[in-house]
């Protein structure tokens, strides 16, 4: 999300002028492990659980969560990726092409889908993702895991598993990378 957001939130493709590290790589790793435990706890194990990372920021996080789940429970959870470009509610208004081909591991009927993204902001991407998921079957439940919840929701959407709640101004930018999470301002 952050990757995309940086390029798609005006001013598009800007440059950070000030940035503060709000999570280190270690912080992220600890948060990932905590979220993995919460997923297991909430679902009483991992039976029927599928992780779906949202392109692009959610995909590496989904992989890391899957690895954590494997280490904790010794189970390989199916992992997929989903691109919501065809389901956005602002089609034609903003330049967005799919990042990659959507890859959903099998039919989702009866499964518990954990959507994974890096940053939860307005909630519009998650809305699009929920629409997209219905085209792949009727999941038993859909849960949401995000590394950063920065607030400013525009839709009634709430995460189930959160790495960090981070109060932000609307014009700030959150950047989630492999080595940590930064909060900053950007100019074109």
């Amino acid at each position, binding site marked *: 999300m952050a990757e995309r957001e940086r*390029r*798609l939130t005006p001013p*598009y*493709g800007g440059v950070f002028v000030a940035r503060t590290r709000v999570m280190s790589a270690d912080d992220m790793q600890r948060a990932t492990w905590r979220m993995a435990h919460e997923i297991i706890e909430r679902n009483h194990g991992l039976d029927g659980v599928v992780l779906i990372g949202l392109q692009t920021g959610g995909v590496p996080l989904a992989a890391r969560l899957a690895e954590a789940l494997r280490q904790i429970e010794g189970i390989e959870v199916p992992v997929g990726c989903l*691109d919501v*470009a*065809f*389901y956005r509610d602002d*089609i*034609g*208004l*903003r*330049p*967005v*092409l*799919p*990042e*990659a*081909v*959507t*890859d959903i591991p099998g039919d989702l009927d009866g499964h518990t889908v954990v959507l994974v993204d890096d940053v939860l902001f307005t909630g519009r991407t998650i809305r699009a993702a929920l*629409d*997209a998921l219905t*085209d*792949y*079957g009727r999941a038993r439940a859909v849960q949401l895991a995000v590394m950063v919840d920065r607030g400013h929701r525009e839709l009634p959407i709430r995460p189930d598993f959160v790495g960090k709640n981070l109060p932000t101004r609307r014009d700030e930018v959150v950047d989630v990378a492999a080595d940590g999470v930064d909060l900053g301002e950007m100019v074109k």
Partner: protein
Amino acid sequence: MSRPGSGARRHGDPRNLISIGDLGPDVADGIEEVMRLTDSFVEVSERAIPKVPTLRGRTVVSLFFEDSTRTRLSFETAAKRLSADTMTFSVGTSSVKKGESLRDTVETIEAMGVDAIVVRHASSGVPRQVAQWAEASVINAGDGWHEHPTQALLDCYTIRQRAGGVAGKRIAIVGDVKHSRVARSDVGAFTALGAEVTLVAPPTLLPPSLDGWPVKVSHDLDSVLASTDVCYLLRMQRERMSEALVPSLREYTALYGLTARRADLLPEHALIMHPGPMNRGVEIAAEVAERQGAVIVDQVRNGVAVRMAVLFLLLGSGTEWGGESDR
């Protein structure tokens, strides 16, 4: 120097797809972009419900002055899988027959509030003219002898899908190049992607001038086949016989048809392609169309996904051809 078929525009036309040259300042980038996007739409097409809500509320009109059920269905299926509304302006039953001018027809359609017009016409250049009068995006579904860009895009996609890519491939385009819109678009697209193209045809079926066409020419199919990765056969129109362009269909087949014997000269890995509809027994022997390497059915299948990609790029992405693609 612009490539054959690229028409007037050396720079891309961001709003329309009339010629392969409209795909951006760098045509190869534009084609690659369409092909990447096509991957996503192939995935959509393979789903149980092969439909996405992307173009809800958009209207795509098919304006076909020349019958082509295959192409029209392919475009309309693509539009419907993107949830666009589709309308068919059937010229046979419309006021065009009553002498309405081309411009009046276009302005009438525009007034209905449409987002894209898919144009097919027996006269070269009509989509370009339509684009001058229309606010909507114009997609060329084949104009006269000029271009058929979505055919070339699906041909590129099929070669990429079946042979790993177009760059460096030795492609023989065989038959009536002179009267072929498919050949003009294919030459532009294949050469932009770095293929080596050889046109194989009797001199009467080649364009009068090949200045600026980065192609080789041969009149001897047998000598070309052994070093061909893709053998692309063009449809031989029966009416060419009456124009003294070739003495007879029999002689044409004897010299330029892909017979079973000739197909054996092709390397094992070679693809055999045809834009359809085929004249079996004329440009292609019936059994050759069925052999390993014949990807004619793949071409048709990929047509829908490629056209979804084109419609999405023009109507849904908010990007411009070859512009900042924001990937």
